[in-house]
């Protein structure tokens, strides 16, 4: 099977050549795929923004800005139609999820009314907390068109107006926490 002896020189040489060829091939593939990967990442983010904002014709990613909040950062993506602000998508978070961090994209109209909300990331329990996702239940639809000044963003168990997901009060509370964080940050310093 082998015609090459396992001398030190041969071993080092073989490994060196193999690694060299491998790294070069990979460098080539990397250069090839660099742009498509960036494009895919941008498309994902843009999709999340388009989901929650009314129609716009600018590039929210280019016009984005960020603010520090509660030990982390919130990202704001304004959507404009012909230069006029139609809404701002806020990438917000909460650390109070049942199984860890939850990330939401909250679409706010210029006056702070909630347009729509999308779930970006979560680790909640399937069948319970994961119902916060639009694909699983209508829980997040109740926020559409609501002004947090009139519609208190906390679960009814805490005296608010939000109908929690059955048997998932913790997840529902966390959801509200993220929404409030986005709203407060926007109203206090986000409007631009």
């Amino acid at each position, binding site marked *: 099977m082998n015609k090459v002896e396992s001398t030190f020189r041969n071993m080092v040489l073989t490994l060196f050549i193999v*690694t060299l060829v*491998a790294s070069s091939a990979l460098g080539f593939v990397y250069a090839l795929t660099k742009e498509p990967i960036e494009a895919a990442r941008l498309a994902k983010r843009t999709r999340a923004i388009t989901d929650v904002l009314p129609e716009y014709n600018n590039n929210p990613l280019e016009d984005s800005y960020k603010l520090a909040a509660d030990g982390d950062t919130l990202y704001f993506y304004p959507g404009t139609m012909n230069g006029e602000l139609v809404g701002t998508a806020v990438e917000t978070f909460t650390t109070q999820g049942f199984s*860890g961090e939850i990330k939401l994209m909250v679409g706010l109209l210029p006056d702070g009314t909630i347009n729509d909300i999308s779930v970006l990331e979560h680790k909640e329990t399937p069948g319970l907390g994961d119902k916060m996702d639009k694909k699983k239940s209508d829980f997040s639809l109740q926020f559409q068109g609501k002004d947090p000044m009139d519609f208190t963003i906390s679960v009814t168990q805490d005296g608010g107006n939000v109908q929690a997901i059955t048997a998932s009060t*913790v997840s529902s509370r966390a959801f509200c926490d993220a929404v409030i964080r986005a709203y407060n940050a926007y109203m206090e310093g986000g409007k631009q």
Partner: protein
Amino acid sequence: MEYIIIIISAVFVNNIVLAKFLGICPFIGVSNKVETAIGMTGAVTFVMVIATIVTYLIQHYVLEKFGIGFLQTIMFILVIASLVQMVEIVLKRVSIALYQALGIFLPLITTNCAVLGVAILAVQNDYNLLESVVFSAANALGFGLALVTFSGIREQLDLLDLPKAMEGVPIAFVVAGLLAMAFMGFAGIV
């Protein structure tokens, strides 16, 4: 306080074997005796912690510095393979008995998804060096917990009268599923 959360999360809530499905091969292969399970855990802990430290250094001072992040997979696995080689050499000198008890499973630590998995996770979670060390040690502990518990159960399973088709690996998997179910109860602690 952060460290306590990392530890509890890695050992119980996100147990590397029962929740994250890493390290299954040794889990099934080495778990029929409690003694070998303990020995395997020791070897894995050693490799896992040192591998995480070295890969952390490589990630931050080589890969990110020179923008060659795409070589992460190759570099990480080469580090692990070399470490296992070294452990083999050291074990041969220090404790020939343990070396022989572990047998084929020692070189198999290289292909143990848990070791590579933990190294990658530590980078993904953006831990600093100390957090990475705690994280990897905690995961090794979680691995050991699952492995030793399971081997204790398997030693008892061997004494049972089972349908022929279920003997050995199948019943081991079903029991592992029940064990995983038990560990699900830890969700929500952190």
